[in-house]
């Protein structure tokens, strides 16, 4: 297939703006999927993706399209995740494309993450096709939305395509625009091989399957390939394209998108962002890669039963095969025993990993409150990175603590500027900028400590703006801050898994809330259980779980014997699911209490 008949593109859209439906329609139009195999959201193959309506992994599919002029084209659609946690995956997808279809809901307007991804696409010199979708909705205002996009980005009015992916209206126009406006890939099939790895997954039979976009040259089955970053050499055992199922081909040449299998057992040997070349006639320089992704959020994952430790390790290892951004290492907690400290891109990522561990691997887990990575300077002049509050040096050893700060962009209807600013200020936000996208919509920019938006910031933002606001953020650096470690003592004993880092001004309030929440969560024991929050040696809050006085089945006669046994068994079972800390039994959800305070 000559390069001139190839178009590589992605779709940029906010959650719910209709990306998956549009992709489904495009797949139908190009007959890549038979009606029989058509399920909703074909590209979102994980159950979790379909349930949550999000894309987690980047994916690719190769389509054949006969244009109105009668010429046949190959279209490679590379799916992009829409959530801020997965911004890194977006940038990988973009690098494999020449164009992007921007999908905006005709009743909603552009959202913060979409805008961020759009700027990313423009930085990558992608041709943008603006599509206003859902024009069939009664409250659609395509004109207003297109005007907003003209004002922000500078599109021309005639560039817009108006669609309803639901009814199929306008889908043909989108396909025509893809072949007419997006340039064909500009690679040279005769040059030394350069092919970019933009994603991978692990297949238990074939090993690592690397998703790749060939930039220059040509690759054949059986070739010796070299990974330019690691220098490792492998023999290609299989090449192919996604239709969307994997379909084997003999070669991939400049401009094409497909997969490489080379019997690689370790996902780390084929790093996403690396360039593949031929071992015999290598290219001189690799393609520009991606910045190494760093996990931003950490938490402890512990098996409920100590015996589940090995299973948890195996499950994490399995997930990591498909998700290089997941990191973990063993840790020991006095309260929870053996577990793992795990790093994630963000809260959604953490949530998804937890859910997959529980669902796909049938594990019961205790999760500790999420933490960011702090940089601590000690009086000895040492610098340490600390991702677990319980690992903090003693107060007197600390000279300064730096915490990660993000620049957050919030798009909100102008009516809610006040509440949004109030929220940001309350989270130690520093105002940066305010920009009217049109008369009614505003983009606010704040610098915020990552820890402040980790827990419930997004929910609060949504509720203060009646669900209209959207949020995007990027890490901008670590800044010094007056942080203290808040410890929780239960029955006089500090519980390492409940410690958290917090700004000094908020410590007392948070301590009070946590103690109160824990009092609600911890069941009454046979004795009074004091719950204290402390900064160093200073107690800042105290609550007491009063001793239980009554646990008895008062009526117990001939017909009650089975009932009695069942009741006792149930109580015993409930107890088994608790963690024993000293004499106190603590339910698992206590370790997530910090997520539940308002």
């Amino acid at each position, binding site marked *: 297939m000559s390069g001139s008949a190839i178009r590589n593109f992605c779709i940029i859209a906010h959650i719910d703006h209709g990306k998956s439906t549009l992709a489904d329609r495009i797949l139908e139009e190009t007959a890549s999927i038979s009606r029989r195999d058509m399920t909703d959201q074909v590209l979102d193959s994980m159950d979790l993706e379909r349930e949550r309506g999000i894309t987690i992994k980047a994916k690719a599919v190769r389509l054949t399209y006969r244009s109105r002029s009668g010429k046949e084209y190959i279209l490679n659609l590379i799916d992009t995740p829409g959530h801020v946690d997965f911004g890194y995956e977006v940038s990988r997808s973009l690098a494999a494309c020449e164009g992007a279809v921007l999908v905006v809901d005709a009743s909603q307007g552009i959202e913060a993450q979409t805008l961020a991804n759009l700027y990313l696409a423009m930085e990558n010199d992608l041709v943008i096709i603006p599509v206003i979708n859902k024009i069939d909705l009664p409250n659609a205002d395509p004109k207003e939305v297109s005007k907003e996009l003209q004002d922000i980005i500078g599109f021309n009015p005639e560039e817009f395509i108006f669609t309803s992916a639901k009814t199929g209206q306008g889908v043909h126009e989108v396909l025509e625009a893809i072949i007419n406006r997006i340039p064909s890939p500009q690679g040279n099939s005769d040059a030394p091989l350069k092919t970019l790895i933009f994603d991978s997954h692990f297949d238990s039979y074939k090993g690592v399957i690397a998703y790749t976009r060939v930039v220059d040259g040509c690759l054949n089955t059986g070739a010796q390939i070299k990974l330019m970053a690691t220098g490792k050499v492998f023999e290609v055992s299989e090449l192919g394209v996604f239709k969307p199922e994997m379909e084997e081909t003999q070669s991939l040449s400049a401009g094409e998108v497909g997969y490489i299998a080379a019997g690689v057992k370790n996902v780390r040997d084929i790093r996403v962002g690396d360039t593949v070349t031929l071992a015999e006639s290598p290219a001189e320089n690799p393609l520009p890669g991606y910045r190494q992704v760093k996990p931003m959020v950490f938490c402890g994952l512990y098996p409920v039963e100590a015996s589940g430790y090995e299973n948890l390790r195996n499950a994490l290892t399995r997930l990591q095969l498909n998700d290089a951004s997941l990191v973990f290492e063993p840790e020991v907690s006095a309260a929870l025993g053996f577990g793992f400290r795990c790093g994630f891109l963000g809260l959604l990522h953490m949530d998804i990993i937890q859910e997959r561990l529980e669902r796909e691997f049938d594990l019961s887990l205790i999760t500790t409150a999420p933490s960011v990575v702090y940089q601590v300077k000690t009086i000895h002049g040492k610098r340490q990175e600390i991702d677990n509050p319980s690992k903090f040096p003693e107060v007197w050893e600390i000279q300064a603590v730096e915490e990660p700060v993000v620049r957050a962009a919030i798009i909100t209807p102008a009516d809610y500027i006040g509440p949004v600013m109030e929220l940001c200020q309350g989270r130690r936000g520093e105002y940066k900028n305010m920009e009217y996208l049109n008369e009614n919509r505003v983009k606010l920019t704040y610098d915020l400590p990552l820890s402040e938006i980790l827990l419930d910031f997004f929910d609060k933002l949504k509720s203060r703006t009646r669900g209209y606001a959207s949020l995007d953020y990027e890490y901008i650096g670590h800044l010094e801050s007056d942080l203290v470690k808040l410890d929780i003592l239960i029955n006089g004993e500090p519980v390492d898994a409940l410690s958290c880092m917090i700004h000094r001004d908020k410590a007392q309030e948070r301590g009070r809330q946590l103690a109160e929440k824990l009092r609600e969560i911890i069941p009454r024991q046979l004795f009074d259980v004091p719950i204290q929050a402390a900064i160093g040696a200073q107690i800042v809050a105290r609550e007491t779980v009063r001793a239980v006085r009554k646990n008895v089945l008062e*009526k117990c*006669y001939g017909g009650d014997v089975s009932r009695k046994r069942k009741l006792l068994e149930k109580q*015993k079972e409930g107890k088994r699911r608790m963690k024993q800390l000293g004499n106190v039994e603590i339910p698992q959800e206590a370790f997530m209490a910090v997520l539940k305070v308002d």
Partner: protein
Amino acid sequence: MKRYIDAILLEARIQSENLKKQQMRMSSVYIGGGTPTCLPYNLLRTMLTGILESFPPDINTEITIESNPGTIDYKNLKYLRDSGVTRLSIGIQSLKDDLLLRLHRTHSVSDSLNAFSIARDVGFTNINVDLIYGIPDQTMKDWQETLDAVLKLAPEHISAYGLMIEEGTPLWSSVNSGLEIPCNEDLQTDMYYFTKDRLEAEGYRHYEISNFALPGYECRHNMVYWQLQPYIGLGAGAHSYINNVRRSNLLDPLIYSDSILNSGGAVQERERFSKADEMSTAVIMQLRTAQGVEEEEFKKRFGIAMYGVFSDAIEKGTARKLLEWNKGRLRLTRYGLMLSNEAMKEFL
């Protein structure tokens, strides 16, 4: 209703034959399940006569019948007493009219007092009254007054239960919708220990978690349950325990009757206790009683030392002051009475 009584009597005849085969004797009969005295007089007669025919009593047999104050009159009580019923249980529940209303009971305080005096008039010398405390809005003073009034009646036996708000009852729905606030645990516990102290001071023995009796008037029938001795339940939903097999009858009276009359049986569930189940259940049930579990007796019954089987549970219970040893008997402490589940679950 007639059909249901026929079914019960048929079941009684069948079970009586089984007993004879196993050479077992009946030591007590208990006619309960709420309000058998609400039966029309002639049916009550049919039932009692039939049951006593199948299980002929002797001089020592305890025969109890439950009753509700609103369903008692001189004629039926006289009949019951004359036919050999030795013990009457009256569901007085409370001696405050507003609290009876709260419990959705249809009888009044004067019904109760009246019933009690009729019972004495016809010659009952062994009367139990059932009481409930911890009713929404009930104060400690209310409860003390009810106890005082009950003591004036001088019943031989008193069962006092903390109110359990059970799913599906009218009270449950009012509590659920916030119309009623349930009695708090602390007050209920205080009422429990007040009852214990008050009744003991009046000469009653606190012989089981919720039961008090003047010496010699402990309910022999209920002791059978708490000793995990064999018993036979007749009627819909009734439970039996015999030869280490627990079984329960079909719950619906109509279906139960059809099944008994057509096939001679109406078992819904049957469960054979393993020896381990039997041992733990015996300990759990016996711990309910003031005498507790006697080590020697346990060894005789199961051929193994109790401590050998349950050392962890016993050590944990005694360490937590829920259990104590008293002359070779393991029993609940005063503190452990209201926390007995905490101690008992360790035996499972």
